[in-house]
């Protein structure tokens, strides 16, 4: 059996391709195409790692389901993810997404937001199709899980946007964890695995709370690594370098820097975060990155990510050790390591 990164890439490629193919069925070729459905199809066609759908399918298979049984849930998650990307790019004023101009840059904010909302609505349809062959209980539980995922994501996004609007700088690591748990982990790791486990087991079980812990530790490690790559990554990364700082995001590195900087430096950082994006470009953002390296904020964040990944391993073994050995089970375990070592 393949191991390590080769296994991760192999599964991501296979399940990603299946999800893309299934996803096409849920992108309507209706009118108005120029103002809506062509926009709706744009982000899904740009590719991506497809990690969320793969998590869903792999978890479902680890619990005994077939690939085709988990595909609809995987499509639902990917549609919802793309919906959030559209809205995120508007919130963050990002100009690039997956190497191409963002949707609102191409078509304007109003049309982009409308397309993003449509993607969220379309994400429900694959779950309702589960009534064919799964009875009524499983589709209802799937929709409930999707509802919770959507609500938690909105709450996390609200926290982050609120901090930026009010220039909140008195934050600690626990604040960051809670924000990332809601904004990122629920729809990136927790719900994909819980949806997969629900499909595989045919019901929601008490032990699936472990997936909330596992998803949190794994997802937060993933997000921290993403934040680190945004500061040290290269052109393969796909997003603009220093983009998080230019958006004024409160990453773990920013929080650590604020906690360790001198009073004068704290004032300057707070002023940086309060200024408009265009005033942060150039020397101001480079100064902040240099201070982060000086105080070891980037290494600190990476160390925390390592610790959280270790906790994820523990939670993983608590739930999955009793399940039969399989390629999917190994993939899930290897993925935790892969997110720490990835460079794109």
């Amino acid at each position, binding site marked *: 059996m393949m191991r390590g990164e080769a296994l991760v890439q192999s599964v991501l490629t296979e399940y990603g391709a299946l999800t893309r193919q299934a996803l096409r069925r849920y992108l309507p070729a209706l009118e108005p195409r120029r103002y809506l459905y062509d926009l709706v199809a744009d982000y899904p066609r740009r590719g991506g790692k497809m990690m969320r759908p793969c998590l869903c399918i792999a978890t479902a298979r680890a619990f005994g389901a077939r690939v085709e049984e988990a595909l609809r849930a995987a499509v639902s998650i990917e549609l919802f993810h793309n919906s959030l990307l559209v809205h995120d790019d508007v919130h963050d004023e990002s100009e690039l997404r997956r190497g191409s101009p963002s949707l609102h840059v191409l078509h304007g904010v109003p049309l982009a937001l409308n397309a993003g909302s449509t993607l969220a609505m379309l994400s429900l349809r694959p779950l309702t199709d589960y009534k064919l062959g799964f009875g009524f209980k499983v589709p209802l539980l799937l929709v409930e899980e999707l509802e919770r995922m959507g609500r938690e994501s909105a709450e996390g996004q609200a926290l982050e946007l609120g901090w930026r609007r009010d220039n909140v700088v008195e934050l600690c690591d626990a604040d960051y964890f809670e924000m990332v748990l809601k904004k990122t982990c629920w729809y990136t790791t927790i719900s994909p695995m819980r949806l997969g486990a629900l499909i595989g087991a045919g019901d929601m079980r008490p032990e699936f709370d472990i997936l909330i812990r596992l998803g949190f530790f794994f997802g937060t490690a993933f997000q921290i690594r993403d934040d680190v790559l945004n500061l040290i990554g290269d052109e393969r990364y796909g997003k603009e370098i220093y983009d998080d700082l230019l958006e004024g995001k409160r990453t773990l590195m920013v929080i650590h820097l604020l906690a360790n900087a001198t009073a004068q430096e704290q004032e300057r950082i707070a002023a940086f975060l309060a200024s408009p994006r265009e005033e942060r470009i150039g020397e101001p953002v480079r100064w902040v990155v240099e201070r982060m390296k000086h105080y070891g904020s980037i290494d600190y964040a990476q160390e925390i990510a390592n*610790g*959280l990944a*270790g906790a994820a391993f523990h939670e993983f073994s608590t739930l999955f050790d009793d399940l039969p050995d399989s390629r999917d089970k190994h993939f899930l375990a290897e993925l935790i390591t892969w997110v720490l070592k990835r460079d794109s």
Partner: protein
Amino acid sequence: MDSPRHRRRRPQRTGPLRNTGGVFRDDYDSARTRDDAASRGVREGYQVIDEQIRRGHRMAQTMCEENGYGYGYATSRERSRRPRYPEEGHREGRRGHNLLEMPMRHIECLAQEILHQIGSGRPDPLGLAELVLQLQLEAISELACLGFGALGRYPRHGHHHHGHHHHDHYHDDHYHDDHYHDDHHYGDDHDRYHDHYPYYPGDTLCDDVASVERDIDDSLDRIQEEIREREREDQPWDWPAAPSSPTTIRSTVPIPVFVSAHDRTEIGLDLPAGSQSLDLEIEPPPPEPAFEADFVTLADGPAILRIEVPRDLPAGRYRRRILVRATGEPVGDLTVQLGAVPKTRPKARKP
């Protein structure tokens, strides 16, 4: 869902591994890494996530209790040990299967079985009907028992009998014996009850309950007989049942026809070849009772002819013309024969 589902025992948690700080470090030493950034981060992470899970459980518990259901995975014994909420005027019964502190386990089992049937995707309709009637019977029995309890009178043969067996006591002839109708014996009590309650114990309420139970029993017997008859005939049940009676359609052009009728129906559609591509309509109905018909054009498909025959339309032959919508020019005929064509008796030949 025909592949084997993997199930695991409930895990025995030994506590989370909070000191995972150095797992991904080359110089990992569990004793050294107790207080480094990673370990502190993990501890903090557990605090955050455990609080989130607790909040989720509390919310789910509150919502379930407000809806009158027992929460999640607690056993019935755990539920019965829960403290009351006197400030809300909360009754035990709202938390699940207790009503005025009388457990109704059989009702709960019946309800679960009904929900299981409904959720199965292909429920057995007769079996489902039987379960629902049994549930009604149980509920009436329990309420009747509660009524006696509220009035301070219990069924003659003793204590609160819960579950599905106690209703037998309502058929017990002792309920109708002179003991209950002895006005001399109940004297003052009778007046007191009569003033405050609509029913006198052992009298009207008992008769009503017995009458309803007999009706339910009769219905159950009829259902059982129908089940046995179907099994004898070996007819597969068609779920859902087809709503319309047999319909024959004769058409000279390929137009989809949808018919809703209560009786045997024969449709005749007479149009010249190629006319199905025109925008057609059915001429307005006459004043007397008639069928409804119209051409419905779907956004991405051909026009279909929709015919609806009212229930009160007498059997017979009905005819309407088909027109070109734009010009009103008639191009064909639509005929609906409802019911069997009456056979005309041959005239007797004169010798």
